[in-house]
Every structure is written in C-alpha cells, then in structure tokens.
C-alpha cells in the first residue's frame, strides 16, 4: 500500500552507453549555445534598460489599439503583449508594455510615463497602470556584470568545496554537470524567447544548488561504495551507487516538482518565468547528476585507495549525535 515510484531493488545499467549519453549532452549544449548566439536572450529591462508598464482594464486588450495610441509619441521600439493567467478575474485584462530606453535619459522621466498614460486613456478610458518600472542603461550594464560574476562565483565555490570534501575528479564531474545545466537553461530561454531578467539569475543559481544537491548525494554513495567494494570495476560501483540512490533521487525530484508545478499554475504570471526556469532546472539537474557528473567521473577514473586520511574526512560529521 506504499506508493513506490521506484521498485525496491533496481539494477538498471546506466553506463552501458555512457559515451553516447555524454555525446548527447554535449550535442544539447552545442544546440543551446547555438540558439543563444543566433537568437540571443530576450533580456528584460533589468539587463538592457528601458521601461515596462503593466496595465489593467475592464476592456479586452487590443494590441493594435494600444499601438496606435502610442505611435504618435515616437518612443522608439515598443513591445506590447497581452498577459493571460488563470488567477485573473473575469474583467481583468492585463497587458505589458515595454518601451526602449530613451535617448539621453537615465531612468524614464515622469513626463514620458504621463504622456503614455494620457495617450492610452484616449483609446481605453478605464486603463490603469498597475506597475511602472524603469531602469537606466548605466545600471543595467552593471546588473549583467554582477549576475555573471554571481554565477561564476557560485560554480567556483562549489568546485572548491567538493574538491576539499571528495577528490578533484568528483569536483570536475560536478562542475561539468552544473555548466551543462546552466547552458541548457540559458538555451531554453533563448529558444523560447522567455523574458530573461534578474529573477532568472536567482533561478539559475538555485538550479546550480539543486543540481549539486543531487550530484553530491550520488557522489557520497559512490565514495562509500568505493570503500566497500575495493576490487569491483568503477563502472559497476557507479551503477550500484546510482541504483541505490535512485529511489531517493526520484522522490526528492517529485516532491520538488509538485511544489514548483503548483506555483507555476497558481502563483500568478509575475513569477511564472522564474518558476519555469526552476522546473526545467530540476529535470535537467536530475538528469545531469547521473548522465553527466557520474559519466565524467567514469571517464576521468578515480583514486581507489580510500584508506585512512580520506576515511576520516568522509565521516567527520558522523559522530554528531542528536
């Protein structure tokens, strides 16, 4: 009567075609990088400056009417998108306007917003501005820089931590998995042209954290089994370890996905992109901890003699008692 997503004892062979899996992962990364280079990301104003205005009105949104009202203002590039969400009420019609950064202005002036407001009120009398955000080009440049530094720092810190707690091969495997996850996530965002803003960076870092969580649990078991089965080939040790932790991997992914999916459906459109990034990250992160991190470990080989020094290093927390 227990719900079991994974049978009690599994013995899947994860590494019979490990070179193929690594190849597929590498190919996907190339594809993602290609999409990024070819299409580029749909940066939000956080990263490229400009103004976004969220409007609400009882009347259905007619993008053409909005655009017509704004054309006369000559504000340059304007994107207008209607937003649909199950959490909206019956006469809640929401649109998002994005206006490019104006020449010679750091942040949008109140006059520009007022102009836009009166122009739109001419076309849609009951329109209301629910939020107005504008970021100057000076800050947006810095925000990109900080974001990139944050991601690189996080990956670097993790590399060092795993290197200290395990061996350098483990650290490389884990970091390869992280880079894989980050690149694939960026690739999805560029392919689907989902708006990429500051919150997505937070999501990226969480993906780094989550994917790592998974990888570390597998590696921890690998380390333990390497001590237990001194003569077994590395490939079999990896297989046993992944099978042993498979039930946990699936359980945790499912609970996390349950939480994230409810947030995706019910949490409103403001954070939908953010939650999408995380859902994608959990799936990719789970895949990469097996098919990238462990496969790299298999490729690099690993020191088999886990005698004294590393023995204590691995168990230094084991004496903590509740």
């Amino acid at each position: 009567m227990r719900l079991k997503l994974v049978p009690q004892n599994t013995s899947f062979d994860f590494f019979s075609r490990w070179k193929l899996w690594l190849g597929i992962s590498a190919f996907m990364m190339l594809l993602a990088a290609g999409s990024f280079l070819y299409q580029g990301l749909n940066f939000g104003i956080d990263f490229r400056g400009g103004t976004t205005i969220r409007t609400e009105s009882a009347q259905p949104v007619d993008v053409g009417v909005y655009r017509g009202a704004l054309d006369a203002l000559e504000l340059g590039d304007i994107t207008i998108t209607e937003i649909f969400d199950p959490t909206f009420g019956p006469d809640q019609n929401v649109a998002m306007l994005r206006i490019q950064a104006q020449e010679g202005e750091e942040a949008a002036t109140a006059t520009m917003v007022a102009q836009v407001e009166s122009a739109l009120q001419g076309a849609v009398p009951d329109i209301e501005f629910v939020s107005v955000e504008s970021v100057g080009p000076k800050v947006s440049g810095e925000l990109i820089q900080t974001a990139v530094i944050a991601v690189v720092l996080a990956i670097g810190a993790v590399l060092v931590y795993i290197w200290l707690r395990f061996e350098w091969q483990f650290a490389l495997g884990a970091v390869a998995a992280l880079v894989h996850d980050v690149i694939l996530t960026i690739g999805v965002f560029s392919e689907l042209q989902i708006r990429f803003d500051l919150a997505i960076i937070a999501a990226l870092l969480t993906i780094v954290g989550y994917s790592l969580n998974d990888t570390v649990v597998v590696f921890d078991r690998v380390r333990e089994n390497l001590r237990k089965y001194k003569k077994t080939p590395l490939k079999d040790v990896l297989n046993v370890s992944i099978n042993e932790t498979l039930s946990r991997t699936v359980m945790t992914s499912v609970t996390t996905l349950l939480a994230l999916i409810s947030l995706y459906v019910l949490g409103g459109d403001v954070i939908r992109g953010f939650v999408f990034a995380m859902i994608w990250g959990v799936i990719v992160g789970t895949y990469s901890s097996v098919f990238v991190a462990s496969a790299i470990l298999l490729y690099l080989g690993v020191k088999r003699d886990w005698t004294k020094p590393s023995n204590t290093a691995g168990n230094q927390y084991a004496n903590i008692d509740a």
Partner: protein
Amino acid sequence: MLQIDTWKRVLIWLVVVAGLLLALPNAFYTRVEQSNDARAAIELGNDTPQMRAEAGQWPSWLPSGLVNLGLDLRGGAHLLAEVKVEDVYEVRMDAMWPEIRDALRDQRATVGTIRRQDSAPGEIRVRISQPEGMSRALQVVRELATPIQTLAGPTGTDIEVSAQGNDIVVTLSEAEKLASDDRTVRQALEIIRRRIDEVGTREPTIQRQGPQRILIQVPGIGSASELKEIIGTTAQLTFNPVVSRTTDADARVGPGEKLVPSIDEAGTFYIIEAAPVVTGEELVDAQPAFDQNGRPAVNFRFNTTGARKFGDYTLDNIGAPFAIVLDDEVISAPVIQSHIPGGSGIITGNFSVEESTNLAVLLRAGALPAGLEFLEERTIGPELGQDSIDAGKVATMVAFAAVLVFMALSYGLFGLFANVALIINIGLIFGLLSLIGATLTLPGIAGIVLTVGMAVDANVLIFERIREELKTAKGPARAIELGYEKALSAILDANITTFITAVILFAMGSGPVRGFAITLGLGILTSVFTAIFVTRLLVVIWFERRRPKMIEV
C-alpha cells in the same frame, strides 16, 4: 541504542516552541500591524482611547515582530539614485576664490595684476601679468592648502596647485575628492531620510549602495514620481545680490557672476553675484503661510549668524533688488524696502498651497549637497501586490498539501513524522524571518515553496537509508540509528553546497533576489534542523512507546 538525552529533548522542543511563537504574529497580520502602529503612536504621545483599543488587539506579552512585506507584495515606490558628487567640487572651488584672490593681491609686487579666467567646473584658473613671479605665486597659493587627516594619519593636502603657462590652476586633490564624495553621499542620505520622515510614511528603506548610490524604497506611496518630487529637488536656497535684469538668455556675465532664469516669468533672466549673502543652511525654520494678499507663501527664520548677515546686508542696500534663488532659479527678486533686523521673512511667488507646503518641508529638512540622478525607478500598485500575495498563498497551500499527501503515501507513519517536521519547518522559517526583520518578496515566497519541496529531501535520504539498513536485518532500532548516522554526511554535504549558493546570491543580489536568497538560506537551516533533530525525536518517542519488533518505512 536509540536514545536522546532529556536535556536535548527539552532544548529541541524549546527551539521549536520559540520559533512557532515568533511566527505566530504573522498569522494575524493586519491585527498585529494595527496594534504595533498604535503602540508606536502612543509612545509618540498620541495617547487616545481609540489608539489604546487598537493597541490592545494584540497582547503585549506575545512577540509582535512581523515579516516585512517587500514592495512587490505591498505596493510602493523604489528609486535608485546616484549622487552627483562633482557638484560639490564646484561649490568648494568657488568658495576658495576670495581667499586665493586676497593672498595673491598681497603679492602684487612680484606677481603683478591677477585675473580669474573662465575654466571647467571644479577648477580655478588665475592669470598673472608677471610670469617671472609664478614660483612665488604658486608658493603663496599652496600655503592656503590644509592637510587632510584620516585615521591613517595625514594623507596630503586638500588642493593641488599647478602652473600652465601664465595661469595658476587650482583643483581639489584626489584624496580630498574621495573624502568629499563620501561626506556628500552621507549628507545626501541623511537629508533624504529627513525629508521622507517629514512626509511620514511607514518603514521606508533608505540605504547607501556602493560609493555613490542611494537606494530608496517607500511602501504605500502612490508612484515613483511622487517620491521623486520629495527627494529629487536639491532645495538649495540662497539670497544673492542682483547685478542686473535681462531678457537675453546669452547675456555676457563677468567672473564671479551668474545668469539665472526666473521661475515665473519665462524669458526673464537675472545676473546675480555667484557668492550668496545668506544660504538655506542658516535657516532654522520654514512654515507654509499666506502673504497679505492671501496667496500661499513660505515663512522662514534664520539662526543668529544668518540673521546678522541678513540684517547687515539689508541695512546697507536699501533700494537695491535682492534675489531669492532656489536651485538656480529666481523665485522672486524684491527690492529691499527697509532694514530687516529680526532674521525672519517670507518668500512669495506663484505657489499653489501644495507647492508652498512642499517647499517648507524641503527647506526645513535642509538642502541636498549635490544633485541626484535617478538610475532606476519602479512603482508597484498595491492591487498587484495583493494579487501576488493571494496567488502566493494559494500556491503555497496547494504545494504544501501535495507534498504532505505524497509523503504520507510513500512512507506511511514515517511520512507523517516528516510532515509534522515540515509544518514546524515552515513555522520556523517565518519565525526566523520575523526575528531578523527580513523582507518577504515574491521570489521569497517562491523560495519558501521550493523549500517545502526540498525540505523533505533530508528526511527522504534518511528514510531510504533506514529501508536499506532494514534489509540487512539488524533489528529496527539499529536500522533507524544506522539510517540517521549514514545519511548524515550526504545531508550535510548536499545542504552546505546549496547554502553556499544562497550566500552568494545574498551577497551579489539586490532587492527581490536577495529576498529569495534569505528564504532559501533560512529554509536550508531549518530543514536540516527539523530533519536531523525533530523527526528523529518523533521517531524515537514513538519507538520507545511501541517497541515494535518490525517496522515498515
């Protein structure tokens, strides 16, 4: 065997109870908020029965700390301003000019006649007629420099003096610029704070960010432009002698004079002396008022030195016009009718009542030392915030219920233990957030939901391990103990790495991202605590009571 010392049990329960008590006020958010506001009002002397009744809505012996709601949840305005620190260099150099002039005049025999030249803002350029006397002139001007004292000892002088052909060029030294920038930003911060406090909104955030920037977040305010009107004006008030009045926007002005436009009469300009007689810094009070014709105006009063300067000047210059200048625009230029000894006066102009009230607030709070440039502006409407809170609540509830059901189905009784721990976990997160006065943002809610999903991870690791240990048939007690022991290193490694990323996010991020990092980081701490202490305690208590021969996990 399975044993936990009594003192450890007590400690664990104490932590749990304390955390839940701290979280409790958030369950009655509006009530506690009103009560807190009323208490603050009573403390300020506004002691009315109605206030007392509002304060009594929440018992004073219970914790009353609340999680602050971020702008994206409450609505309000956010501004990131850069202080134009260079403005101050110009004022500083202009103030030095009389000193330099007097010092060089004393040396007329060696340097000849002197003449100030047009120059870039922030530097003084003086031409001397006898180039042979240059070394002497440089020496004299350098003597005017004062050494800069820092904690590390003297680091040089405040000005740099050099010769360029027949010109002496004086600028602020790099060290002095750094010191001046820091002072300027700190002053600006203080004045912005005073202005916002004058307007009296709840819990504004006013923070310095980096060397030249100030972040201002005011919940509950209608829009960023409203906020900008309060803090964006420099409000530099000066009283300057008028040289002449003109309609020519390109009129030539002599050194030490300025051409400034009139606020009310378009196309009218005044040439005024750049050095003011009195400035707004010497004001002690300013109040909105009405002039004798019933039009809005602002009454002001000078301090003693200001009053003396003002009195002396009006005594000596009866019949001459006198310009009241606000941020390089002339509000009015009345002719001095008589000696004004009392040090108080009235500013009249074409004000609306609102403008005169605002001007009085600005004058009272003091002038900004330099102009502000706004790099980022965000306005979030309160309805959007409320929508986000509602959506966040529903999503969290559903996520929570789904995880609880799933855990119970997968692990039976042990799953229920994990669920109790999960509920405690959420309580602890809110308790900690209230304790440190953290701000909950929309991504922060996402962080909590993510924690709900991930918090069970530690328990899952343990339960799976216990399952494995049960297979080797060492008896249930031993299996449970081994399960906890062996899962520990994986739990710690996994959570420490996630925690590292949360810390980096916190350090590098700003605003909403930081809110996410806080809830994620706290969520990791509380979930590790609940998994390795609380669930374990629950399992042990159950085991002691039942002593089962067989367990199923």
